[in-house]
Structures are given as structure tokens and as C-alpha cells.
């Protein structure tokens, strides 16, 4: 177990910069999920920690030691790969025990540790099989066992669940979290799936285009997204955005159509400052036409069983509303939308950064601030 420190790390391939000045501290025993779309550099960051890629500039420290020049085997990390990377010609037992064999452990000790590890992930009956004879979920377990058996200081997961079907993914997600709670090794988990990220993480790292957008607990990032990018990326369905400008006199945001959306408090911004107003689908409520903040036309209603996804159009801007009611609405009908002022997010139209206002602070009190 160890803490990981990433200091001003840059990675370039030839002239292409993959990652620019990334700083991140991962605490001892913490489960950190790096979340981002494909090509954002999240896997590269993981591979830099593992030692599978060279660091162009900056430093990576594991347990206080600079590991830039160390080989992967000297860093004490274990990794679970996306395609599992099991050795196809070795049995499950040989796969799990390979690291111990390389380390030169006596056969008897190796065997007992392989059996114990296999038991902990439910593979006891499959030890003599080859990877080709296993199902996706079983292969995933072998990959996990192969990492666990080494008792590594750090666990690295590179999208390990993306090859599994939806049901198995949820099951393995729980299992990974359970194993982490047992052995409490520092874990870094890379994924593009926000559900995976939200459910697994102690702390979430949202990446975009080779930089870190925001670091924080899943709840904090959901409540207070630091940028319009994070706001749109976290949360499903995605947050709605409406362009407009600040009106000091009217204590609100004037949308492009001239509609006023009142705010709970006055942000410290000049009159006419261009902003994007954000509201999550689950926070906007449907009301009678004319009774809400704005009126919108119904485009399509999607039935989800427990709830309904109302796809609306507000002056050609699509707005999505998630409601647990069963409104009787036909396509083309006009409906009112209410934006509770304390649920409104504001983002600077130019920089894309969050505009802090008093209401944000209300939500931040819900948890202990975490130093980043």
C-alpha cells in the first residue's frame, strides 16, 4: 500500500502532446477512478504510473519514491487489462501463479497461495482450464486473481469491465469494490463509464483532452461540476444548457429569447456577461403551460418504467426532463417548465468554468471538503 503522487507530468509522442502538466495526489488505500471519453489520456496516465510508457516530463512518485526510471516490475504495481491479457497457453493456475514463479517462490508455497487466491475470487473449480475455455466473467476473475496474488502496493485497472455484458459488469463492479474494501490497497481505475466511476470511486478524476478537469467525490462533482464539460459529462441523461446573459437589474439570467430566469442569489458579475445556464433533467419540473420559468414543446416522451424521459424543444434547443409523474402529453403540446433557482448551475460562456454562487455553497456543506 502506498500513496501515488503525479507531479506536473507531460507526455508527448513525437510532436503530439497527449498529456499536459497533470498534477494528482492519490492517498494511501484510496480508490480513485479516472473518468473521461476515449482519447482523453486516462489510459496513458495509468500506463505512466505502471511504467509501461516513458514519462516525457514531470515526476511520478509511489510511496514517496520517484519511479520515473524504474522498470514496471520494480514499481510494485499490479494491473488488470481491458482485454484481460491472460496467457493463452497457460492454465488458470499457471496464469495466477506466474508472478510468483518469476519471483522464484518454491512450488509448494506457490500452489497454496494460488489456491487461496483462486478461492477468494471463486475460481477453485477452474484451475486446470485454459483461458480459452472460460467465460468473459471468469477470465475477468483470473485477471483479478493474477493481480491480487502479488499483494501489490498499487492496483491499476484499465477499463477492466468494458468487455462484459451489462449484468456481469454490475456484478464485477461490486466484487471489485468488495475486494478493495478487504485488502485496502491503493487503487486507480480507468473507465469511460460514468456509472462505474460514480459507484466505485472514493474520489473521481474527470479528464478531458490530456488535462484534469476536476477532482472530487462523486457527489461533489455531481452537485458542483467545475466546468461546463464536467457538467455535461457527469450525469445521465446529460445536463441541459441554455445560453443567455446576466441581468443585474432583474436578478437573473436573460435567455437569448428574452425570457428571464430568476436566480436565488446575485452572482458577482457585470451586467450582460454571457453565461450558460445549466439544469439537470432530474431537477427541472413539468408544470402547466405558462406557470413555469419557460414554456417548451413536447418532441417525444420515452417510457423508462420507473420514470419518463421527456424530450422537449425550447426555441430549437433540446431540453430533456426526467419525471416520475405520468403526464398525459402528446407530441407538439406546450408544457411549462419550472427551474428551481437552487438547482440552477451557471457557467461562463467564454471560459466554460463554473460561476460560483451562494447556492453552490449550500450543497458543498453536505460533505467534508477534500483537499486536492
Amino acid at each position, binding site marked *: 500500500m502506498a500513496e501515488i503522487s503525479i507531479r506536473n507530468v507531460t507526455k508527448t509522442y513525437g510532436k503530439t502532446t497527449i498529456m499536459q502538466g497533470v498534477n494528482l495526489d492519490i492517498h494511501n488505500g484510496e480508490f480513485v477512478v479516472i473518468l473521461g471519453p476515449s482519447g482523453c489520456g486516462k489510459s496513458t496516465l495509468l500506463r505512466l504510473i505502471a511504467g509501461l510508457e516513458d514519462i516525457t516530463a514531470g515526476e511520478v512518485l509511489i510511496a514517496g519514491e520517484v519511479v520515473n526510471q524504474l522498470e514496471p516490475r520494480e514499481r510494485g504495481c499490479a494491473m488488470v*487489462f481491458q482485454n484481460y491479457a491472460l496467457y493463452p497457453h497457460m492454465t488458470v493456475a499457471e496464469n495466477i501463479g506466474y508472478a510468483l514463479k518469476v519471483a522464484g517462490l518454491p512450488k509448494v508455497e506457490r500452489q497454496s497461495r494460488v489456491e487461496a487466491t483462486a478461492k477468494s475470487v471463486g475460481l477453485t473449480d477452474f484451475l486446470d482450464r485454459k483461458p*480459452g475455455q472460460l467465460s468473459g466473467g471468469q477470465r475477468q476473475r483470473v485477471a483479478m486473481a493474477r493481480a491480487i496474488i502479488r499483494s501489490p502496493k498499487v492496483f491499476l485497472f484499465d477499463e477492466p469491465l468494458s468487455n462484459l455484458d451489462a449484468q456481469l459488469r454490475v456484478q464485477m463492479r461490486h466484487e471489485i469494490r468488495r475486494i478493495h474494501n478487504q485488502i485496502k490497497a491503493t487503487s486507480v481505475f480507468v473507465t469511460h463509464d460514468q456509472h462505474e466511476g460514480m459507484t466505485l470511486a472514493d474520489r473521481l478524476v474527470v479528464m478531458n483532452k490530456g488535462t484534469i478537469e476536476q477532482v472530487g467525490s462523486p457527489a461533489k462533482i455531481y452537485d458542483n461540476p467545475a466546468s461546463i464539460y464536467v457538467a455535461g459529462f457527469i450525469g445521465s441523461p446529460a445536463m441541459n444548457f441554455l445560453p443567455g446573459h446576466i441581468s443585474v437589474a432583474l436578478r437573473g439570467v436573460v435567455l437569448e429569447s428574452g425570457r428571464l430566469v430568476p436566480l436565488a442569489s446575485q452572482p458577482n458579475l457585470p451586467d450582460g456577461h454571457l453565461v450558460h445556464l445549466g439544469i439537470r433533467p432530474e431537477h427541472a419540473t413539468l408544470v402547466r403551460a405558462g406557470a413555469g420559468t419557460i414554456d417548451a414543446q413536447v418532441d417525444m416522451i420515452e417510457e423508462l418504467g420507473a420514470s419518463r424521459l421527456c424530450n422537449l424543444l425550447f426555441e430549437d434547443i433540446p431540453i430533456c426532463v426526467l419525471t416520475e409523474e405520468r403526464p398525459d402529453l402528446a407530441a407538439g403540446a406546450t408544457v411549462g417548465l419550472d427551474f428551481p433557482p437552487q438547482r440552477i448551475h451557471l457557467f461562463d460562456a467564454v471560459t466554460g468554468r463554473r460561476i460560483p454562487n451562494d447556492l453552490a455553497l449550500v450543497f458543498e456543506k453536505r460533505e467534508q471538503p477534500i483537499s486536492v
Partner: protein
Amino acid sequence: MRRAYFKFSWIAAALLAPQLLIVFVFFYWPSAQALYWAFTLEQPWGGGNTWVGFDNFRQVLSDPYYWSSVRVSVIYALATTVLAMSMALILAMFVDRQLAGYKAYRVAIIWPYAVAAPAVGLAFQFVFNPGAGLFSYINTIAPGWWDLSKYPWQAVTAIVIAGAWKQVAYSFIFFLAALQSIPRSLTEAAAMDGARPLRRMMDLQLPLLTPTFFFLLVINITDSFTDSFGIVDTLTGGGPFRATDLMVYKIYADGFRGFDYSGAAAQSIILMLLVMALTFVQFRYIERRVHYT
């Protein structure tokens, strides 16, 4: 196995005809002819023949020169195969690990495959010539020590080296393709598991190469039995003292220089059966150890 049925079509037949004609003219016809000749006594200048049954085979198999030819053919086949495949594997691993200059020799190593066997033999004439070749430097240190027209073992060594040199290219391409088809994440997983490059080679790459290894073994052994004529003819001419009189070369020498068409035909049939038997043995006993993934 699934089967597909097609309707007969004149266009398909017409398109197939040239290839079928070539196969027929250059393989089935001569093979049938050789089979017929092997059981008859053929007159060198044509004009009548006599059915002799297995006499030709009896004669060939009781000829001590023939058995020494078989012996040297086997030595040649094994030595060239081992040499060519091990060289090819080493080179392919260098290229796979992208050691310095790999791009240049990745191309250069493929070239020898495009060179015809007689040209290879001729080129090695210049290398091995005791008076003027590269090896003549040995003779400046130890006068008269190197002379492949005088010492049988040197002549055999020379054709083995030339033959292997020609076959390296083919094996190299296949080894390289096989190495590069091993997923990179496997190598990385082994690196994370603590295995150094040499260890990874032994535990991971070599076992995963076994299907390729087996394929190349069959191809190389077959090739070195049947495709060695050009090298022997230009490099040693079968000598000295019949030391490099390989089976294919002896067929040519007996048939076209000795005008013993029937004996040569019998030898062709034996060689064909031998190669078939070897291939069968390899599939039967060695393929079992191959991991197909």
C-alpha cells in the same frame, strides 16, 4: 464442415482452365510419366521400353551411392532447417523488439527470398572460393586449409550455409508476423508480473510461436529436400567424391548425364514418398505439441 454447392458455369471453367492446365502439364503429367518410367526400362534416345516391375527400385535401393545420397540429404535438410529457422527467429525477435536499425534490415532480410537458387549458389561461389573468395583469407593464415572442392565436410557446410541463407527470409517473415500478432498487452502483463525480456521470450513468445514453428518446420524440410538442386549444381556440382550428391541432384545427374531415365524416375518416386512420409510424421507426432489459440 460446411459445404457450398455451385452451379456449373462455362465462365468459371474457362477462368480455371489456365491454372489447371499448368498444374496438369508441370505436375500431374510428369509425375505420371515418372511413375510409368520407374517401372520400365527406358531407352535413352527413345524408341520402345520394357516393363521391368520393381527392378528399378531394387537397383536403386541396393546402390551404396544412393544410400550415401540419402544420408547427406537428411543431414542437409536438418542442418539447413535448424540453421535457417534459428537465424530467422533471432532476427525476427530483434526486429520485433525494434532494436537499432530494425527498419533497414526488416527489408534487407526479405530480399534473399527473391533470389533464385542457382544465383544463390553462384553468389556463394564468390564467398567460398578458396583462391579468391571471402574464405580465402583463411587460407592466407592456414594455407590449403579451406578448399570445398577437396574436403567433403567443407563442401557440405558450404551448401548448408547457402541453403539456409536462402531460407532465412521465408521463415523470418512468418516469425515476425507471428511475433507481432502476440497482443502487446500480453507482453506488458508479463512485464508487470516481473518477467524480464529473456524470461518473457521463453515463457510467452516461444510457446505462442509453436503453430508458426511447426508450419515452418514442415515447409523448410520439404523445401530443403526438393529445392536444393540449384545451389548444389552451381556451388559444388555434387562433389567432391559425391559428398554433396543430394537426392534431387542425383536424380538429375543419373537421368540427364548418366541417361538412366528409369533409375532417375524411380528415385523421384522414392523422394516424393519420403517427403510425403516426413510431412505425415510431422503432422502426426509434432503437431500434438502445438498450442493453437
